[in-house]
Every structure is written in C-alpha cells, then in structure tokens.
C-alpha cells in the first residue's frame, strides 16, 4: 500500500480570483525588482562617473532591446508600487471585504496597466 499520501495541489486545476492573482504578481514583480538592483546600481554608477560615461550609457540604453528592458523594469516597479499601496490600504481596512476586495484588485490592475502603458510611451 502507498505510504506517502498524495496532495491535490495541481495549481492549474484551481481557480484563482483576481485578488489572488494581484498577490502573486506582487511577489513575482518583487523578486524581479530584486534582480534588477545590481543593474540599476551599475547604471547609476556610470551615469554619475563622467559626462562621457553618461552619454555612453544614454546611447546604450537607447537601443530597442535596452528600452524593452527598461520598460520591463518600470512595469515591475509600477506594478509593485500600486499593489503595495493596496496592501497598505488593506491594513487600514480599505478593500478587505469580498466585494471591496475584488473592486480594489480590479482598480490595482487597471491603474497599473495605465501607468505601465504611459511608461512605455514615455520611453519611446
């Protein structure tokens, strides 16, 4: 007889409501931002070293690929920012009920997407 009991934990069979998706994206974007730290620090160093480095960096970052990378970074940042505000609001009981929770999850999503698009426009 089988000793080890199985668990029903196939995440693809489980329905996740929007607040749950908001939450996991918050985590994913957080980890991404952590990984961006060394890159951002490197860029900061270059930008402050000399006018030459500043211009080189500027040029380097103007390539489409780099723009995409910046956009990725900004997207993670914007998302983490607004989802973080949602967390702070929940601490003071805003949006911690079923209906309001879903509403605030939607708001978080919409606002983040709007700002991510704006960031895209700004970059290009």
């Amino acid at each position, binding site marked *: 007889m089988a000793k080890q009991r199985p668990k029903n934990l196939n995440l693809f069979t489980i329905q996740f409501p929007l607040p749950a998706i908001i939450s996991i994206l918050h*985590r994913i974007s957080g980890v991404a931002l952590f990984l961006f*730290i060394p890159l951002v620090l490197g860029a900061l160093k270059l*930008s*402050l070293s*000399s006018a030459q480095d500043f211009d080189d960096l500027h040029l380097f970052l103007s390539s489409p690929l780099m723009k995409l990378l910046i956009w990725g970074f900004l997207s993670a940042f914007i998302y983490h920012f607004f989802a973080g505000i949602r967390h702070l609001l929940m601490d003071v009981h805003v949006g911690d009920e079923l209906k309001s929770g879903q509403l605030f999850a939607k708001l978080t999503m919409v606002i983040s997407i709007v700002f991510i698009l704006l960031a895209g426009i700004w970059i290009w």
Partner: protein
Amino acid sequence: MVKSVLGVNHQGLTDWLIQRVSAVIMMLYSVGLFAYLIMHPGLDYAEWHALFSSKCMKLATLLFILSLLFHSWIGMWTVFTDYIKSFLLRLVLQVFLLLSLIVFFFAALWILWGV
C-alpha cells in the same frame, strides 16, 4: 519600539512594520525622483551630477537604499521560506542573499560618495 508584552518572539510584527515603513519611504523617494525626471526631459550630465552632489539627495538616496535592502531581505526571506523546503538550499540562498545585500550597500555608498 516593540514592548516585551508581546513576548520574545515578535519578529513577525517587527518585520511587518519594517516592510511597511520602508515601503512608504521608497514610495516618497521614487515619486520625487520620477517627478524630477519628468520635469527635466533633456536631462544632461551636469544637472544629474549636481542633483546627486547635494547632501540632501545623498542622504535621501542612502535612506532609500537602506529601505530597499531591508524590504528585499524580508520579502526574499519570505519567498524562500515559502517555496524552498530543503534547509540546506535555503541556507545557501539566504547567505547569498545577505552577501548580495551587503555588497549592494557598500556599492551604493561608494557610488554616492564618489560623486
């Protein structure tokens, strides 16, 4: 800050508070920085360098970096303890995390005080 009334192990509350305070600090700083960037579309090296030469900006940036490091430590530690069930692997990751954060901190100091 945390009275002994909560017993010896109140790390959860402390972490939770630090996470929130650091978040607010980072929010204020980044909103400020973004505002600056948007108001200075054709930013050149001189302006940028001048900005980071001010004591205020240096201190603010340092505070931001410190918040970032604490925030990341707590956040990443939570992620590790959720998903990494092997103690050894988690230990390795945590040591690596800690070292990176220390390196980031000194790198930031070096960058800022190099200006």
